[in-house]
């Protein structure tokens, strides 16, 4: 039982506000929105705006990892982001209502190529040093598998960590695996798979039930 959020954001009164992730999921998200009749030409253009009107939706664009923050507070009614982001922020409260199936990738443990020396390192040195942008997922994974790890959070290119000696291995999201290969890293263990998810604010899920269920249905048809 955690503290009580001090709300400042009002729920929107007009069209549903959808938090849209910029970055790797943006293209496929906009394609899906086009297919349900929301015109995304403006978002695709070179406007510096962050908020766009698109048919019966208002699109609020942001970093994927900010989507749960906005949706939890009600600054967006619904949002799209990767399961990896939701796993990393599992203490936030929102409804995870639909698997949009696109944007598939894997959360993996990767280390230097050649002979797998991770187990030996853990045995001799007591703990593995793991660099990651997903510290909570990494800590939970090593806890769950009964191993000791020293998790080091980095913000930029995580592949640099084992190459430069900061860490023994990394926990990261992998799509094609090319970046890993280019840096001499190989996948040692698969932790979870991830796809794009639709999430809803707790209050909006109740008070705007029909609009949200309708959006889920339309997106489901557009993404399968």
């Amino acid at each position, binding site marked *: *039982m*955690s*503290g*009580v*959020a*001090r*709300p*400042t*954001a*009002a*729920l929107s*009164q007009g069209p549903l506000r959808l938090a849209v992730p910029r970055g790797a999921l943006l293209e496929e998200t906009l394609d899906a929105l086009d297919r349900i009749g929301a015109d995304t030409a403006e978002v695709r253009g070179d406007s510096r705006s962050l908020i766009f009107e698109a048919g019966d939706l208002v699109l609020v664009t942001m970093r994927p990892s900010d989507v749960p923050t906005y949706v*939890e*507070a*009600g*600054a967006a009614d619904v949002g799209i982001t990767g399961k990896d982001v939701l796993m990393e922020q599992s*203490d936030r*409260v*929102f*409804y*995870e*209502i*639909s*698997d949009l199936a696109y944007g598939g990738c894997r959360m993996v443990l990767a280390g230097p190529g050649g002979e797998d020396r991770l187990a030996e390192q853990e045995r001799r040195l007591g703990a593995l040093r793991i660099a990651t942008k997903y510290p909570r997922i990494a800590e939970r994974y090593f806890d769950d598998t009964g191993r000791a790890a020293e998790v080091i959070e980095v913000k930029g290119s995580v592949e640099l960590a084992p190459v430069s000696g900061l860490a023994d291995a990394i926990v990261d999201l992998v799509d094609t695996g090319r970046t890993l290969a280019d840096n001499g890293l190989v996948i040692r263990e698969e932790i979870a798979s991830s796809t794009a*998810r639709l999430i809803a*604010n*707790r*209050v*909006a*899920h*109740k*008070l705007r*039930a*029909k609009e949200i*269920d309708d959006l889920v249905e339309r997106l489901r048809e557009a993404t399968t």
Partner: protein
Amino acid sequence: MTHPIPPGTRDVLPDEMRELRMLQARLAEVFEGFGYGEVATPTVEYDEVLARAAAGAPAAYRFFDERGALLALRSDLTAPIARLVANRFASSEPPFRFFYNARAYRAVRPQRGQAGEFFQAGIELVGSPAPEGTAEVLEVLSAALDAAGLRRAVIGLGDAALYRQLLEELGVGEDDRARLLALLASHDHVGLDMEVSGLALSDSEKRLLMRVPMLRGGPEVLDEARELGGEAMARALERLSGTYEAAAERGIGDRLSLDLGLLRDLGYYTGAILEVYDPALGHVLGGGGRYDELMGRFGRPLPAVGFALFLERLHIAQAEEERIAEEEVGR
């Protein structure tokens, strides 16, 4: 030079305090009008006494007194009032009607803008079983929301045991049930769907288990659920529809939104559960429900029901509703 205060705490200055007091007074007037008497309990209690509430909100702040006994700051008022009833009303005839305007304490996560210390206003009705006791509490809550100026606020009404009973009726094993209920309590409908797909059930039973958490709205959702689920569903729905009918007879049916997937947490709730929403706010204003087994843990087995509203959130929603109303007048 400034002096820090602990994270999650804050000072309240006169303008805000005046409005909070006004709000408390309006709520107190409603509660008293329904025959509820105000109680105050200690901010600190013995940890082992509060912990008797078992699955309730665990105390976040604990410390030792001068003799080494473990004390805790209360995380809500339900457990202290259960203790109060067991201690002070051991030989009195129920029902007991109490209300409170008090501070409670919970842990804060860093940098999330959370309050570790906050005001709650709420009532406890001890010794009055479902559905009439529940309907009375819903009526008081509805009147309290009106008094706070939140005419658009909605009470979500569910049943803590509904989904569990449905799973039992369909013969889902204990381990699977626990996993499915944990997913439902964390609002992870995607995970729930995945787990349900893996169960050894017919397609129509799986569809039912996936559909029920999405059913929310007016009384028509009861009909839809019965149509989907036949006998097993009808039995699981019995108590919720009884509560709804008793509340509708008191004239507050329009204020309720039935929610078949509502599960607040895996705490001490046994029957009806409720949450309060207002369109002006993205956070839940408060909640409550029945906890018919809680009093027994304090040695006085009595059915009980209540709710708590987060006063500061109520205040923000009130200000937001006023702003919206002014905008509409200005147009």
